[in-house]
């Protein structure tokens, strides 16, 4: 097979490779860059693993590591970041390569310089690629020849090289310079094949830089060329950020209608609905996505919280139990245990709530932030009954120090304050929440707590007062 890259690119790639720590494969003089690169093949089927390995070897690849599952892949990538990842879409155990890619990108485990190539027999995966915001560098449809795989890798490597300055700037959070680099690329003839990537990176970088108006315009410009679902989702995200919730919701609804398999759009819709105070729709949206991608535990955690705020403690409990049983190797986290306790409390199951708090107390509480400490102490105090009064009083000193409470913290404080007949603190917290930016988000769960104590009327009075204040701002 002929060398797949030009001489300049080979030199450039070799410089890139040499900059990195020793990867195991020696940096000898080579005729083909593939010999210099470290490959990671992620595939759960042995026969396909062998085929892929033979393909890479036939292209001159030498250093090939194998991962047989989602977890194995994450472990290997964290230990030794490869240059090229070739990942099968179906990873077994209900996991997909797309989920792995999203997890790697969300946790910043995958540097931009690494090529991620998806291999799939599913034509339906193309629908996913055309929609989602986090895409692989390319994909190959099975069956394919080693030459086709080689071509895809070569093109992906060329693209990585073309964007390397931009990647460095973006990773260094030098957003202005990153956008300037993209603008400069757009003027270069060599960058012509990448013009849509440039448009997309530009919008994303502006969004990362907090330039919401400019990012919104950039997404609108892209949509005018073609209504890519990811661009519409980007636009919905910017509208959400600007608190233009009805428009954001209409836009994300269009995305879901266009791409029903684009699950991140469901997460975005749920966030928009929650911020609008529409927990019922948020729960419905997340439940739909969770049913179709049952191993996305992060989404299920959100679903449980949203269901709890929506007053559906049965669903909240069932989902949280699923999370704790299936995604808590090494014991439940403080966050999960607290959520379990809240669900049990809402359902009136005090023993289950105590068991969950027992698990919470076993986690490392030394490094938790003030808000999480307040949540822990307040839930525990309520469960201790009269004996918890002293604990509640102690934590009140921290509560007054916190200027803006997260919604969940405010709910835990209000619950504890009312349990210990401290109406003053409870009323102060709800007035603060209903008068602030998180009013719509906080309204329903706080009302639920007041209703439990037969205090809906005073709640409504505070609500009116807070609304008046917001109007006069």
């Amino acid at each position, binding site marked *: 097979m002929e060398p797949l890259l030009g001489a300049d690119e080979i030199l450039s790639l070799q410089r890139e490779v040499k900059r990195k720590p020793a990867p195991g494969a020696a940096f000898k003089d080579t005729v083909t860059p593939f010999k210099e690169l470290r490959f990671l093949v992620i595939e759960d089927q042995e026969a396909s693993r062998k085929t892929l390995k033979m393909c890479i070897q036939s292209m001159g690849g030498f250093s090939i590591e194998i991962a047989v599952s989602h977890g194995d892949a994450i472990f290997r990538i964290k230990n030794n970041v490869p240059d090229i990842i070739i990942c099968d879409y179906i990873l077994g155990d209900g996991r997909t390569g797309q989920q792995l890619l999203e997890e790697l990108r969300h946790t910043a485990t995958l540097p931009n310089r690494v090529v991620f190539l998806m291999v799939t027999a599913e*034509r339906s995966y*193309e*629908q996913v*690629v*055309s929609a989602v915001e986090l895409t692989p560098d390319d994909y190959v*449809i099975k069956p394919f*020849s080693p*030459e*086709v795989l080689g*071509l895809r890798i070569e*093109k992906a490597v060329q693209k990585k090289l073309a964007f390397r300055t931009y990647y460095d700037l973006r990773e260094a959070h030098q957003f202005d310079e990153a956008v300037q680099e993209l603008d400069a690329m757009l003027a270069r*003839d060599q960058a*012509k*094949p*990448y*013009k*849509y*990537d440039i448009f997309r990176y530009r919008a994303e970088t502006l969004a990362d830089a907090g330039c919401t108006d400019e990012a919104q315009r950039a997404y609108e410009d892209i949509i005018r*060329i*073609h209504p890519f679902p990811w661009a519409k989702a980007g636009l919905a995200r910017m509208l959400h950020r600007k608190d233009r919730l009805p428009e954001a919701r209409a836009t994300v609804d269009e995305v879901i209608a266009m791409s029903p398999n684009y699950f991140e759009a469901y997460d975005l819709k749920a966030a928009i609905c929650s911020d609008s105070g529409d927990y019922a729709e948020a729960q419905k949206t997340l439940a739909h996505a969770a049913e179709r991608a049952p191993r996305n535990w992060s989404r299920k955690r959100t679903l449980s919280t949203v269901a709890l705020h929506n007053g559906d403690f049965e669903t909240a409990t069932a989902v949280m139990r699923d999370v704790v049983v299936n995604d808590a190797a090494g014991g439940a986290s403080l966050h999960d245990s607290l959520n379990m306790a809240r669900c049990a409390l809402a359902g009136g199951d005090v023993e289950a709530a105590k068991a969950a708090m027992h698990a919470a107390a076993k986690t490392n509480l030394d490094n938790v932030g003030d808000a999480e400490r307040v949540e822990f102490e307040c839930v525990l105090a309520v469960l201790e009954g009269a004996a918890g009064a002293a604990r509640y009083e102690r934590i009140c000193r921290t509560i007054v120090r916190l200027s803006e409470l997260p919604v969940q913290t405010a709910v835990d404080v209000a619950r504890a304050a009312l349990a210990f007949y401290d109406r003053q603190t409870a009323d102060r917290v709800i007035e603060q929440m209903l008068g602030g930016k998180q009013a719509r988000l906080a309204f329903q769960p706080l009302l639920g707590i007041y209703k439990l104590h037969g205090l809906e009327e005073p709640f409504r009075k505070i609500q009116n007062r807070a609304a008046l204040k917001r109007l006069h701002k």
Partner: protein
Amino acid sequence: MTPALAPPDEGFIDVLASGVHDTKNTLFDALSRIDAVRNTMAASAAAPTESVTLLDEAYVAVERSAERLAKLLSAYRLIRRENPVVLLPTPLGDLAEYVRLRAAAEWQGTAALVVGPVVDDVWIMDRELIADCLVNALTNAARYAGSKVTLELRAESDWLSITVVDDGPGYAREVIGGRTPSGSIGLFIADKVANLHERNGQRGTLALANGPAGGAVFTLTLP
């Protein structure tokens, strides 16, 4: 140029598709069994050469039949819109290279494959479906071409024109007349695929014609 083929009556298709689907799966199953026997025989020094050759031929025959049925199913899905196009920005240079590689792997005959002018641009299209159509058109052309088959990609205002030209005897009259000849699944799919490419209210087309010197000219035009 004459517009391409009219679709067949869709009323029959659901029943046929179900039968085609089952038969295709049975053939792929048979293929894996033949392959297993082939591997066993290849490992055995005692296997008679004639049997090995016959088994190789049976393998190819079953593979061809299974692939043909798979193509029929693709056509069915396109009609039923179960498999709508996936529009992604595709650099045209990459597309030409991808198509060339795939066509070369299936090339039959002695004609040369020439990749002619390819406009340096990116087009929003379904890369895989368009590549399938072009590989099919190129390998088909190779069977009839005299000395060469040419692939060209040109941009004309808001349209991309992809042409496969050969120097063979050209299309039969009924093909360019717009009637569905037997064995034209590839052309039928290409016509559907082109038509499913829609942008700003404009749809793609397939046109079949014979060139001034007589060779076949297959042109996909995409908005």
